[in-house]
Structures are given as structure tokens and as C-alpha cells.
């Protein structure tokens, strides 16, 4: 019984850790897609952010500077995406895919030529990373059964980015549904002409959305390399940008459900780690590859069968042209 509780707490704790980059990337995608820009390039931005954060942190020794660099890299990528899809009215999917390729190639290339470690950045330690924060009274309450344990294990002891990610969810909901900016953001993704005839710049609004997207996904990238891990390695985003997009669709572009879906994906991932190498009755030991594939298989099943009708923002993916 006691052991089961510890097991569950550990899995949930791991769920939270694994969900953080998804939550950040998913919210990032939410801003841009709500504004009418499909951002398949989230994956690339995440990767670029992770690399820039690790590289900067390794060179300067400051995690905070690393975080800024991560955001900066994502902003740069978002800028390219915006230029291609807003100003030049190019195809957003193609532009996004191009960014993904660019990020994959560039991070490996720069990593190799700067650090000569086969694409890895140097191992980070101490202030070069975001370390776990112990919340007030966590140590004191640690011995309290169940609740104290949950507080110590699950709620306390995460790094600052984790808390930022969870706070970003209600903040996003508030911005989206309670503020002028949110109203306009939602409108520009549904019917940019309504925004244009109201005398508001569609271009400006979409760039604003892309900036927020970049900040969030940049933080997400930094989390991967300088909070969750201690350095950058090749392709460390490992499809999380795509999973975040899937989660966004699953959540029907709403922040609350987005959190739940990301946690669910995080849980699948954690569960997968947990059952690796364990023996099951009847089937025996399942090959590790099959278990690793589990979250992805479930993703496909869920997306195909269980989300019902997900209606994307109507103007999503369509460049806005004023002239007829």
C-alpha cells in the first residue's frame, strides 16, 4: 500500500517533468494558431531554443542568460516564419517544415563547430542549470503521511520553469478571454477581415502572437537542455513540438484542456519509462522499442478516434490578403 502510493507519486512527479515542455510548446502554438498562423515549426523552435540555451549557459555560466538565448533563438525563427507567412504570404506549413530542417541541421553543425563534441554541448552543472526549488515548509511537511508526501514530492522540488509553465495556463486563458488583446487575437484567427474593417492591423496582431509563441517555446527549449537535462544533445526535442501540436488539436485550441492533454501525454511517457524492462504475465518482457512507441501509438488512436470534431480557427493557415 505504502509502496503503491510512492510509486504513483513518483510516476506523477515524472509526468509533471515530462509534460512541462509540452505545455509550453502547446500554449505557444495556441497563441499563433488562434491568430491564424499554423506553426508546424514549433519542433524546430523548441530545438533551436534548447541549443541556444545550452550553448549560452555553457559559455557564460548563467542559466538565466541561457534562457534569454533560448528565447532569442525562438524569436529569430518566429521572425523568419512571420516574414515568410505574413509579409510574403507564403505557405505556413512549408515555412514551418523548413524551420524544422533548419533547426535540426543548424544545431548539429554549430554544436560541432563550437564545442567539437559530436553535436553535444558541454555538461552543465550548478548555476548553469535551473535547479529544483524547495517550496516553503516542504522539508517540515515531508514526514506528514500522504498530503505532506505529495507536497514534497509532487508540488515542491521542481525548477522555476515548471512553475512558469503551470502558471502560464491560467494566464493564457485570462489573456484570451478577458482582455482586449485576446479578443482581437481570437478574431484575427477566425476572420481577419473583421479585424481589418475594424481598423486594426492584421499584420501587427499576427506578429504579436508570434512573439508570444516564440517566448513560450523558447522557454520550453531552455527547459529541455538546461533544466531537465544538463546539456544539449542532437535532436533532443524528439518530436515534442509535433506532440504539442497534436495536443493543441486534441484540446480544441483551449488552454485548460491543453494542460490536461499535455499532462496525459506526459503521463503516457512516464508510464512508458516505468514499465520498461518489467515482466508481464503471459507476454513476458515486452521489447523496449514497443514500450517506447506506446505514447505515440496512443496519440494516433486518440487523435483518430476520440477527439470528435475539432474545428480549427477558421482563418488558420491562410495568409491575409486585402485586395480581392
Amino acid at each position, binding site marked *: 500500500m505504502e509502496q503503491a502510493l510512492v510509486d504513483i507519486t513518483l510516476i506523477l512527479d515524472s509526468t509533471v517533468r515530462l509534460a512541462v515542455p509540452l505545455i509550453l510548446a502547446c500554449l505557444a502554438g495556441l497563441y499563433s494558431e488562434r491568430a491564424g498562423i499554423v506553426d508546424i515549426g514549433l519542433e524546430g523552435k523548441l530545438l533551436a531554443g534548447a541549443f541556444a540555451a545550452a550553448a549560452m549557459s555553457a559559455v557564460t555560466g548563467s542559466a538565466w542568460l541561457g534562457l534569454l538565448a533560448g528565447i532569442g533563438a525562438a524569436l529569430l525563427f518566429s521572425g523568419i516564419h512571420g516574414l515568410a507567412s505574413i509579409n510574403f504570404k507564403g505557405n505556413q506549413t512549408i515555412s514551418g517544415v523548413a524551420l524544422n530542417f533548419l533547426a535540426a541541421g543548424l544545431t548539429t553543425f554549430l554544436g560541432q563547430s563550437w564545442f567539437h563534441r559530436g553535436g553535444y554541448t558541454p555538461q552543465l552543472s550548478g548555476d548553469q542549470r535551473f535547479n529544483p526549488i524547495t517550496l516553503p515548509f516542504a522539508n517540515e511537511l515531508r514526514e506528514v503521511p500522504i498530503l505532506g508526501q505529495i507536497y514534497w514530492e509532487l508540488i515542491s522540488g521542481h525548477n522555476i520553469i515548471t512553475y512558469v509553465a503551470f502558471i502560464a495556463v491560467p494566464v493564457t486563458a485570462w489573456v484570451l478571454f*478577458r*482582455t*482586449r488583446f485576446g479578443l482581437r487575437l481570437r478574431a484575427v484567427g477566425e476572420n481577419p477581415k*473583421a479585424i481589418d474593417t475594424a*481598423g*486594426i492591423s492584421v499584420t501587427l496582431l499576427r506578429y504579436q502572437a508570434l512573439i508570444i509563441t516564440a517566448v513560450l517555446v523558447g522557454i520550453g527549449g531552455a527547459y529541455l537542455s538546461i533544466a531537465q537535462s544538463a546539456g544539449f544533445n542532437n535532436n533532443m526535442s524528439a518530436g515534442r513540438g509535433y506532440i504539442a501540436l497534436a495536443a493543441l488539436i486534441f484540446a480544441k485550441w483551449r488552454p485548460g484542456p491543453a494542460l490536461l492533454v499535455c499532462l496525459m501525454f506526459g503521463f503516457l511517457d512516464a508510464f512508458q519509462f516505468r514499465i520498461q524492462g518489467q515482466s508481464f504475465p503471459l507476454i513476458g518482457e515486452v521489447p523496449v522499442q514497443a514500450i517506447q512507441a506506446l505514447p505515440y501509438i496512443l496519440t494516433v488512436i486518440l487523435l483518430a478516434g476520440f477527439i470528435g470534431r475539432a474545428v480549427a480557427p477558421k482563418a488558420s493557415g491562410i495568409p491575409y490578403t486585402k485586395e480581392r
Partner: protein
Amino acid sequence: MTSLNPENAQRPEGAAAAPLAIELIGINKHFGPVHANRDIHLAVRRGTVHGIVGENGAGKSTLMSILYGFYTADSGEIRVNGAPQTITDSRHALALGIGMVHQHFMLVDNFTVLENVVLGAEDSALLRPTLNKARDQLKALARDYGLEVDPDAIIENLSVGQQQRVEILKALYRGAETLILDEPTGVLTPAEADHLFRILGKLREEGKTIILITHKLREIMAITDEVSVMRQGAMVQTLKTAETSPEQLAELMVGRRVLLRVEKGPANPGDVLLDVENLIVTDDFKVPRVKNISFQVRAGEIVGIAGVAGNGQSELLESIAGMRDQLGGTIRVNGRPLSLAGDDGAARARLAGLAHVPEDRLRMGLVTNFAAWENAILGYQDKYGDGPGLDIAKARDIAGEYMKKFDVRPANLDLKTSNFSGGNQQKIVLAREMERDPDVLIVGQPTRGVDIGAIEFIHNQIIKMRDAGKAILLVSVELDEIRSLADRILVMFDGHIVGEADPASADETELGLLMTGSHPDRAVTEPGTLPAHETPAQQTMVQMSPKDNSGRETN
């Protein structure tokens, strides 16, 4: 328009002496090689309804978009209340008190009415105070002008008429003194249009200036004080409405004499070619829309089905054309019963000698992304080439013939269909269906959103088909059109045929009463005339179903 409110006929005295609200001087605008506005002069007096008429592509919408700041003129001057202004964007126009109700509503479909009204006119970074203020103001506006809309309703659940009211509310909320309405009645049912004109009348009484863009001369005559006619980008003339006539306006618009009446000889009905017996059809929600209808159409006659939109005409047409399964009844073409159930019903109907011009050319008649020649063979593509290949040369030849014969302009086979005007798109559909020499032609809304010049042409083609001995079933919500084309009129109400009339002798009031189900002698036999699942308040919603926005033009 069955009846326009008589109030609207009363025009304020001394309107002619009122100061100018808007003055446009020498406006020019090019779109690439197209000179959309040539040296336009226009003066609109305060507190009047000023009509602007012209065919599609005459430059009316462009001119108004310039006034509203959506486009910038290449040259020319705009004066608002006497002061020269450079209107750079819509926000600027709004600040000057100019509001626009666009032909295609600029609404966010999944927002509430309230959110749409405040969008772009929010007072502060937080929404709540603005929303509360707007809610109060909407109440006041609803009271003052009869603009009732539920502020918390979601736009996509509203009828087209209600959506238009939201557009008007948007402009008034921003303090518009001059209101531009672009083809406001194109998407409305007659009842909704009447309501709109009552609202416009009230706005004029309150001293607002209204610019009404339309190509419906009847509306111009009914509500405007002055009217300006545009043709091919130029301003032809401005007239006092009281001193002009529809005939004169039509001639100015088209540049030649236009017959507003259709000239046709008497019909020579022959054998029964289309025989509909006890037909029952349901809509997508399994609600019966056609309730046990029987009628016949003979060779050489046009049978018109009149009725307010949403009384089962669409389902009737779709069922006969093979697009919608029947619940019961028989349809015979040339004496042979047609089994139209299944997905290839429409193809089998064609084989049986039936051609169909659908009500909504954009949704059902054309693939707007296709080139003109592709659309000209659509549905008959199997006739071009054997095996899987398509005989493109032959298809293009025939399409070229169609375009020549039906005077489709521009006569460019490769132009994307969406780039043609409504009238020319309709001609492509008509040519495709008529030139296959069917025995039975069923036509829905043949001239919806079509220019006055093209209307004349289309009407003449339909008469020609009749005189060639075809059986023609015509469905239109334009009572005038039915009356001038049909040899017999059947009136549909709530899925029943509630009366038959002779177009020559039918009285408009009588028809109107039949169409609204309120004719004293012809009460529908069922108790209550509403479908069982609807409350009376919902009925208007059904009639003005937002799905029925087929009149919306693409250009």
C-alpha cells in the same frame, strides 16, 4: 419584395436643401490594368437615403471601400461634412462617423453578438467594462431603431437578417452618422428586407445619412431620396428618385434599353414530361420539408413555384434532381419512373433527360476553383473521351461554344470560375445544363445575384427552352420573376402546395397571403402550420436559415 412599408415612401421635406454629409471629388482607382473608378463625383446630403446603382463591376463597392478607408484612391478628394479628409484606414473612417455594412458580413462567426460589436472599439485593455457598457447601449439601440438581437447569441446561430442587424449595430455603436450598406438585401428574405427598410427609415428620421448600394431598382424607388447611377467605373448621373423611373435607371445602368418585362408568347402545353406524385422529402435532420406534393409539368410550359424561402422548395428541387432521397412518392420523367435513391441519383436523373440548374451555383453548381472550361463540362465529363482519359480538346471546344452562345464575359476558357461575375457564372451553369438538350429543366433561383442585363438574357433563354418544347420547373423567391416567366404558378407553404394561380390574373396580395399561409380560403388542413418540433418564434429562424445564404456573391 412583396410589400414595402408605406412609411418609407414619405420623404422628409426640404431634404434637398440639407448640407452635404459626404462629398467625393474626382476619385480614381486602378486595380492593375482595371480602372475601377474613373473621375467619380458624388454628393450625399445629410439625413437622406442616397442610392447608388450599377451592374456588378460598375465600381460601386470599390468607391464605397475608398470612402470607408479599406482602399486608398489613386487620386481625388473626400470631404466629410465639408472638410477635406484623407481617409487612410477604416479606423479613420469610423472616427469621422462613417460606418459600413459589408455585403459579406465582417463578423467573427463563433463570437457573441456583444463581442463582435465591441471588437476594435474596446475602451480598455480589459474587456468586462466595455462589454457591460455595450450591453446597455445595444438595449438602447434596439429600442430606438427596432434592432433587436440577443447580445449573447453566437453569430453562427443567427439568421442572415439578424447578422446584418449586428453589422448595423456595430456601426452605430461606433457612433456612425453616415451608414454605407453594400447590397444589403441580396441575402435577405422579403420579410427581412422589409424589416431592414423600416430600420433605415427610422435611422433617416434620426438624422443619419444612408448610402445604399444595390442593383435592385425596386428598392431604390421605394426608399431613396436621390440616386446615383454608375456604369463601367464612371458616374453616369445623379437623379432625384421622385423624378425618375425604373426604366430610366435601368437604361442608364446598362447603357442601352432594357426590357424589365419579359416578352413571351402564349404557352402550348403538350405531353406531361415531369410527373411528381405524392412526394415526401425530409431535410438533413429528418424533418419533413416536402409533405405529399403532386404536380405535373408539360412540354412547352414553365411552372413556377412561388413561396417564402425555406418552405420546402429547396428540398423539392434537390429531390427531383436526385441529390436528396425521397421518403415516399414517385417522380416520372417522360413517363418512366425515376428511382433516384443512392449517391448517383443525380447522374441517373441526367441520363433520364433531366437537367438541373441548382439554387446555389457556388455551393452546388460550380467548383469555383476550376477553370471555366472544366465547369462547363462538369457532370457530363463522361461524354468527353473513352476510357479513363478526358478529351480535353473536345471539352474546350464545346466550352468555347457555350461561352460564345451565352455571351459569357470574359470569354476566357482558362479563367478561374470564381473570377467571373455572378451573372457570368450563372451563364456557365445554364449553358452546361441547357445545351445538353434535356427534356425537363429544373431551375432554382436563376437570377439570384445576377446583373440586370444578364437577367434579361437568362430569362430569354428560359423562354426559348420552353418554346422548344421542354418542360420547365422554376423555383424562385423573387415573386416578380415567377410572375413574368411562369405559365402557371404553384404556391408552396410549409411543404404543401397551397394554391395554383394564373400569372396573368393573379393578384399580388392574394399570392402574398398564400405564400405566408394566411389566406382565409386556403387554410392548411393540419392544425397549426408549423412543423411539430418548432415553436412559432423559431419559424422565422427556419425561414431565414443561415444556411440559405446562397445569394451571397463572391465578387
